[in-house]
């Protein structure tokens, strides 16, 4: 039997890797992929607690998280395409139209 907190450590590590990706990368597509990593870490935690409490609710919430991830990926990638058409770049630090 695997203790529940092992899964929580795995979720923490995945979450941190995703946060590092969001904060350090310049490529917007890879930033979006790091957000997917973060959402997966959340899913690991939800399913681990669903197993621990022997309740299905955690898995239902994980399904809603996956729905959100799909919506976010669709809109985000549409934004990236629109952005690339206008500015010919995918670097996050060159997209500074709103900066004073």
């Amino acid at each position, binding site marked *: 039997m695997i203790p529940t907190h092992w899964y929580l450590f795995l979720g923490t590590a995945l979450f941190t890797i995703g946060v590092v990706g969001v904060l350090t990368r310049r490529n917007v597509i890879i930033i979006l992929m790091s957000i*997917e990593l973060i959402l997966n870490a959340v899913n690991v935690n939800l399913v681990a607690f669903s197993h621990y409490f022997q309740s299905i609710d955690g898995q239902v919430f994980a399904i809603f998280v996956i729905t959100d991830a799909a919506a976010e990926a669709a809109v985000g990638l549409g934004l990236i395409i629109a952005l690339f058409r206008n500015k010919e770049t995918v670097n996050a630090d060159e997209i500074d139209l709103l900066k004073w």
Partner: protein
Amino acid sequence: MLPQIAFFILSGVALVSAVMVITRRNAVHSVIWLIVTLFSVGGIFLMLHAEFLFAVQVLLYVGGIMVLFLFVVMLVNLDVSIKQAQFSRQWQVALVTAIVLMVELGYGIYRGHQGFTLGEAAAAPVAAGNTQAVALALYRDYMLPVEIASILLLVAMVGAVIMAKRKME
């Protein structure tokens, strides 16, 4: 002993490929490594008796979202950005901050983990089958959230079409 070995293999593959995702220069390689990560996380779901979620992970994430990512990587011309610096200027600060965050979270879980070990003996798989249980919960207890999620997907679809359209009339 076997579940522990499987857990360590799956989580090791997931973590190593997650690190590869955020360090690769070529975005296509990142997508491929992210697929490896998602498969390993799916294996973790399988170990937790969440078979339906494993299927959703493979079908929707690997089959849907990652193909969308690959499409966009192919559509966007990345030849210029591959030759440029891959990490932003503040990466040292970001790395230190994230590691501090991980240590804090890990320490909290380590201090509190006695609280999670109590109900472990009561673990028994749901008798009716995982997919049936998920379906009952989704369409009976969570009916309104499912409808809200469907509206969210509709809005996202319309938003993606409007964003990617060439010109607004």
